[in-house]
């Protein structure tokens, strides 16, 4: 089939801001008919904001979008769909309790004499799916099929509804290797039919396998658009992480080496589907950094250690004693603490006061039958508000009224109040201002001087280099490298992240 080469969609100088944040800053983007265009960037880069402006979920502040040369300004997702832009999300956005046919034609069911003609509905659905090489019983509920089939049904529906541009937002995140290939075959077929496809994923291998061009965003700005055939992995990772090779970062931790014997030993520790078994030693007073791209398994490493997703292989021991890390409760009892990445959903409880948020973990460890006396709660809260310089007018203020940095410090205080011996911080400096940044880093350093062991996950490589004694590099859900001493610099971290994976079935 002849490949149409015209420009399907062009975005010029698109800007979108939210209160307190500029999510997209004059971003340009073009999509040609018959191409798969990968859109890459770390969390907060602006990928999803760009997509939401295209699919009508957000209205842009300024800038121009042309679809087929005509101005395009959808008020909602339905208008975007009618104009030709369909979206398929990671979480299948179909109804599991309806049949496959009903899902494909909900709201558009063929009718005869005012009644839905089930026979015609099922025949249409079968015909539609057979074009995707899918021969399934369309009268069964969607939930009786695997996620891959559901994903293909979602693609079929989106293309049938819109037909010009297909946005795939991490469609492969929960599929296995064989299923990914099937979805890719379908995407290639749609590309041949002349659709423009925007493909968002964390898996760089998939980007190189499928896409024709790549656009990288960072902090709401366009970093660049390249042809996939002409870019190397390392350049791509550099573009995504925004690290410039000339930049020198001082390695603070090297000034205070730590040669103590390992206090914590993890052996073959892992969980199927989350992170492959890894070995990890952590000394007292040591900061171990975890580097990797979004979705690489860095957060999963923390969750498996803390028992959020209990490990299903391997052992953990502390100075020769076996540790029970089967659940967060057990991990807390063993002296572990965990500040999660997404404060809003996993960390703060917005309507509770600063004091209540701070004493939460301590109270949980004591058990509900032994409430912490009010006076003691106040003392603890006041001590940490002072020590961490949490800026709040009142310890009884609901925590959602505080700024991001202060919320982050309050969560840190929550875990520090339990006197943990092993503290995991996932992206401790995300979304907070530069001043608070430096304070959190100073705090990390002072904690480890007091003998606490820390595991810090961050996509800010300079930060990791600054405070880590060792850096673990995670890729494709496995620990692939460990950097120590002089090796700890942004250059070698980027190289380790970008390295070609040794075997094909590593994931």
């Amino acid at each position, binding site marked *: 089939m002849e490949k149409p080469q015209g420009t399907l969609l062009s975005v010029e100088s698109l800007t979108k801001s939210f209160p307190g944040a500029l999510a997209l800053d004059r971003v340009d983007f073009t999509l040609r008919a018959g191409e798969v265009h990968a859109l890459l960037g770390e969390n907060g880069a602006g990928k999803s904001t760009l997509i939401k402006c295209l699919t009508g979920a957000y209205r842009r502040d300024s800038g121009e979008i042309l679809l087929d040369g005509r101005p395009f300004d959808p008020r909602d997702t339905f208008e975007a769909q009618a104009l030709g832009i369909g979206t398929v999300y990671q979480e299948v956005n179909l*109804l599991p*309790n*309806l049949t496959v046919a009903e899902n494909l034609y*909900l709201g558009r069911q063929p009718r005869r004499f005012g009644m839905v003609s089930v026979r015609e509905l099922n025949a249409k659905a079968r015909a539609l799916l057979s074009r995707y*090489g899918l021969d*399934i019983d369309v*009268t*069964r509920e969607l939930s009786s*099929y695997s996620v891959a089939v559901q994903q293909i049904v979602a693609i079929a529906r989106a293309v049938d509804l819109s037909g010009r541009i297909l946005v795939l937002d991490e469609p492969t995140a929960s599929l296995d290797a064989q299923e990914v290939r099937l979805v890719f075959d379908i995407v290639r077929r749609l590309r041949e039919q002349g659709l423009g496809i925007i493909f968002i994923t964390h898996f760089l291998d998939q980007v190189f396998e499928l896409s024709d061009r790549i656009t990288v965003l960072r902090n709401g700005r366009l970093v660049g658009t390249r042809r996939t055939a002409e870019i190397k992995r390392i350049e791509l990772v550099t573009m995504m992480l925004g690290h410039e090779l000339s930049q020198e970062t001082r390695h603070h931790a090297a000034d205070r080496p730590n040669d103590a014997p390992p206090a914590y030993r993890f052996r073959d520790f892992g969980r199927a589907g989350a992170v492959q078994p890894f070995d990890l030693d952590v000394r007292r007073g040591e900061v171990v950094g975890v580097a990797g791209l979004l979705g690489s398994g860095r957060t999963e490493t923390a969750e498996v250690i803390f028992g959020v997703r209990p490990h299903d292989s391997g052992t953990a021991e502390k100075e020769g004693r076996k540790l029970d890390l089967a659940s967060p409760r057990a991990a807390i009892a063993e002296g572990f603490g965990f500040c999660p990445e997404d404060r809003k959903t996993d960390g703060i409880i917005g309507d509770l006061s600063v004091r209540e948020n701070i004493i939460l973990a301590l109270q949980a460890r004591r058990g509900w039958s032994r409430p912490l006396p009010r006076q003691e709660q106040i003392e603890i809260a006041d001590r940490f508000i002072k020590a961490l310089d949490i800026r709040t007018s009142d310890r009884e203020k609901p925590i959602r009224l505080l700024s991001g940095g202060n919320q982050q410090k309050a969560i840190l205080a929550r875990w520090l109040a339990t006197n943990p011996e092993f503290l995991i911080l996932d992206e401790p400096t995300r979304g907070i201002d530069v001043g608070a940044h430096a304070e959190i880093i100073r705090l990390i350093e002072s904690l480890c001087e007091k003998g606490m062991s820390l595991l810090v996950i961050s996509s800010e490589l300079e930060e990791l280099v600054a405070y880590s004694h060792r850096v673990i590099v995670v890729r494709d859900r496995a620990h692939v490298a460990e950097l120590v001493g002089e090796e700890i610099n942004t250059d070698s971290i980027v190289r380790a992240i970008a390295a070609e994976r040794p075997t094909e079935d590593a994931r």
Partner: protein
Amino acid sequence: MKSRYLPLAATTLIFLLAYTLCYAQFPAMLSTRVIGNLFTDNAFLGIAAVGMTFVILSGGIDLSIGSVIAFTSVFIAVLLAGTGLHPLTVFALALVISTLFGAAMGAVIHYLEMPPFIVTLAGMFLARGMAFVLSIDSIPVAHPFYDVLQSLYWRMPGGGRLTLIGVLMLLVFLAGILLAHRTRFGANVYALGGGAATARLMGVAVGQTTIAIYALSGLLAGLSGIVFSLYTSAGYSLSAVGVELDAIAAVVIGGTLLTGGSGFIAGTFVGILITGLIQTYITFDGTLSSWWTKIVIGILLFAFIFLQKGILWVSSRNRVALDHAHGR
């Protein structure tokens, strides 16, 4: 068999089994007389339960049904006693009021984003209170047209009577089945039960559908009130207490998932028959307290909750793998 038919099959099987056991003990129970009475005695409950099935399928709940039935019966009795209006006019007025009442609850649920439980609880108190405002006494209905309606029946072979209200219930069930499975509205109800946010993304007019669902439930509660009025020939504000809970029980025993999205109107019909069967058995036995009905229904409810959990668990493990489904 597809797993979504399992609860319906289980209910039907339980009903047939129970009927066989009853028949073994009291052969007289297998007669058109008993079946005719089963329909007549449960007509008002069955009609209300059809509305409840739609509400539960959409993931909601309607606690106002019993109160709306009582209000309607009092409304009819007061108007017939106090004015010269023809019963048909009064019926039409009652249906308009109950439908608008349901639609208003649906609107509050949708636009104020309130849980249906709370909104319809308020509706329950409101409707019951309004019934008391109209009259605190039990008002008998004596109207020639009522006598005509009550004397309408079809004598089935074997001497059983299929009364007007019994037929009305059967018609409501038939209409409910068509509405649920053969209209876009029905598909939207299931879609809401599967997930309101996803349904909205897929283009379902969530507000419109929610209001229509509660309006339908109100309409059927009103119709149930009319049937109740014909059945008892009276209007009393303390009547039909707890009918909403009996309806919910019939819906759940009929195999509809309380979380919404899965179930059948036909299942509710079997659920009603099971409830009626237990009562008939107790009448035949003569020594059992009528509270045994509640006990048996309680046990059945528990059994069905376990059954549904079990089916969900099994069907989530039996997903059709891609390599089988992807034939090329």
